[in-house]
């Protein structure tokens, strides 16, 4: 069976959904709403890529939502104080990298379980931000929105940026030794250590990368609206973990690809607008997404069990 069988089967499910839509609700395929949808999901894709890296090396980061909010507010405040866009962008990425480094230091340095560490940092950053901003929005200067471009040019820029990043990371994962290390550490830490790879360094770097990507994603989100909502990142961790898992990245590490995370995200992101166009009540959205996630894990479980026996 081909290497990307799992990814293709998710793509197949997406194809079926699109065919159903083409027959019953061709209105779904209008350019402008689809462009908006894609631009809105572009930051999520960036985070999902980072999440895939983290999960491949057998860790998890549930603090991304809070990191996203903190980075967005920091970038927004700088922009509101007349900093150039590039500075705001650098600040967002830098803040994210720092927050990621904190997670990484705790997980890799002190060898604590990442689910607990990132649960703690998730609550700390979120509540810290609440205390600092009191829930206040940051109002942004005109020139920041869409990088000062027209709306559709801005949207295309974001989509292109996310796409390029996906391709670059996927190639790096396949063609750099760092990518190989990531899979090795995720599959068997001790074997990696015996082979001269430092699992702790790999894990630390992965968390920093995750943070930097979250910062970038926060900036990509900031430029889409005239203000920054300090709660904008709520729920992002679940959304991205879901996309990654649906795309076939093994939650126990060492298996999966960024392409999988990409198609997984596409499938989940299409559900909500698809329901609208098919005149199904929006309540069903979460239930259907949940069912898809469940299906994906059950399929993986059955597959690994069959392999073992």
């Amino acid at each position: 069976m081909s290497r990307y069988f799992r990814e293709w089967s998710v793509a197949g499910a997406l194809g079926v959904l699109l065919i159903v839509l083409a027959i019953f609700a061709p209105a779904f395929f209008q350019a402008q709403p689809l462009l908006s949808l894609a631009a809105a999901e572009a930051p999520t894709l960036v985070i999902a890529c980072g999440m895939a890296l983290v999960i491949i090396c057998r860790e998890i980061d549930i603090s991304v939502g809070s990191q996203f909010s903190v980075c967005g507010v920091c970038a927004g405040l700088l922009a509101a104080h007349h900093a150039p866009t590039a500075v705001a962008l650098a600040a967002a990425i830098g803040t994210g990298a720092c927050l990621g480094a904190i997670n990484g230091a705790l997980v890799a340095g002190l060898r604590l379980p990442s689910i607990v560490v990132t649960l703690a940092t998730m609550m700390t950053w979120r509540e810290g931000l609440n205390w600092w901003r009191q829930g206040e929005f940051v109002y942004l200067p005109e020139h920041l929105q869409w990088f000062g471009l027209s709306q559709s040019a801005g949207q295309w820029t974001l989509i292109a940026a996310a796409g390029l990043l996906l391709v670059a990371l996927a190639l790096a994962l396949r063609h750099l030794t760092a990518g190989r290390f990531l899979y090795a550490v995720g599959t068997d830490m001790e074997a990696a250590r015996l082979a001269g790879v430092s699992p702790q360094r790999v894990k630390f770097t992965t968390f920093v990368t995750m943070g930097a990507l979250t910062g970038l994603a926060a900036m990509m989100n900031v430029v889409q609206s005239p203000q920054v909502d300090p709660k904008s990142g709520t729920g992002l961790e679940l959304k991205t973990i879901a996309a990654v898992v649906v795309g076939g990245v093994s939650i126990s590490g060492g298996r999966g690809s960024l392409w999988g995370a990409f198609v997984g995200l596409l499938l989940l992101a299409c559900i909500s607008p698809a329901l609208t166009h098919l005149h199904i009540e929006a309540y069903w959205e979460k239930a259907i997404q949940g069912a898809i996630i469940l299906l994906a894990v059950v399929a993986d479980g059955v597959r690994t069990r069959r392999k073992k026996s």
Partner: protein
Amino acid sequence: MSPPPLLELRGLLKSYGGVRALRGVDFDLRAGEVHALLGENGAGKSTLIKVVTGAHQPDGGTVSIDGQPVTGLTPASARKLGVACIYQQPALFPDLTVAENIALRLEPTSGFRRVAWAARRTRAQQLLDRIGAEISPEAEIRTLAMPQQQLVEIACAVGAGARIVIMDEPTASLTQKEQHLLFAVVHDLRAHGVGVIYISHRLEEIFGLADRVTVLRDGQSISTQAVAAIDEARLIQLMVGREVTQIYPPSESAPGEVVLSLSHLGASATPTRVRDITFDVRAGEVFGLAGLVGAGRTDLARVLFGLVPADSGEIRLQGQPVHLKSPQDAVAHGIACVPEDRRRHGVVLEMPVAHNMSMAIHSRLFPGSWLRLGAERRLALDFIRDLSVKCHGPEAPAGSLSGGNQQKVSLARWLATKPKVLILDEPTQGVDVGAKSEIHRIVRRLAKAGLAVVLISSDLPEVLGMSDRIGVMCSGALTAILPGDADAATVMAAALGKGSKGKAA
């Protein structure tokens, strides 16, 4: 007429897959006797215990308790019939108290029963008093030392009314004083008419404690003797006395200069403390390391591979003293180690053969961190040819290969580092006969090419057949260095700690 023996095993057979672990074991245990069970690693002792405790079903033969044949023994029914086993590592709940642990074993289980705390405590106290253990029933298990935990296990066995008590190397982790306490308990059990099956590698314990001894070899019971009527030399002879069934490739290499030299090496951060190890290994030589499980051979290998720091003595490579702080250090100095248990750390089963083979030489094969898949493929194809690895090419996942071929992949990974010293830890464990002799030929060829090979193996014929010289370890120390043509009894005597410290041949 004498009463029937407590436990009687006749013609017991048991196979796992294709491996015949028991091939006709006869054994009987009388009330009020301590019956020692002796045998090399893999002689079938653990399998025998598993059958008697009902953990595994025998394929053939009979088990009788009190003269009554029993079939379909399960752990629960074995317990009911009075069988109890005290393992080396007690299986207690560390966060519960002694009384609670005892109660969990002895009280009928129902989640909704009201707990009679006071009665539990009294009962635990009585049992502990009965075996003379000075342990508070209120103590949490995790606060107790290993021997005290074993005493709690014994209290459970006594409380359950066990009449057949199996002790599996109970003294392995005990100090002298604790051993005496344990022996007193064993004597007490015997006085109360309990039959004790006592498994130990320590001959002096067997002579001090047991009434009779049965020797197992290759899954068969070789002989049962009264301890009073046998001596150590005879016992060792019985343990190792087997015909050589396998032909080993002859040694053709002429040992060259000393490559690896250890003097008074010691390390305490290992499970078995490694003490005062001194030996040299020459280029082109296969240096065998023999010993029983837990003798510290793997621990020594871990020190030599930089996984555990040495805290005394010196390691020299080609005359230069080296400090090995990590596997990277060891590899940089030309030491490679093919680890024991290849399924866990030797190969990454999910990864393709080629990735596995290049894993230890990433920085050399891929300078600038860009993967050169072509070069990697060529490396893999070379090794697949040289070591005749049977697989569907470099892209096949390592998990799809047979055990012997996985071992070759693991070997290739470390040969790729171009080592001067190659440590092989149990290279043929769980490998079929054909692959085994292939691996032997490869080891010979490597030695001939000038590698210094340290071969750790629990398979005595293998060590004898493959080694130019043999170092024997016991309890973390080197007890003998013997020439390659030493006989099995001498090696076994040294492994049991009976050897006089021999000189290098």
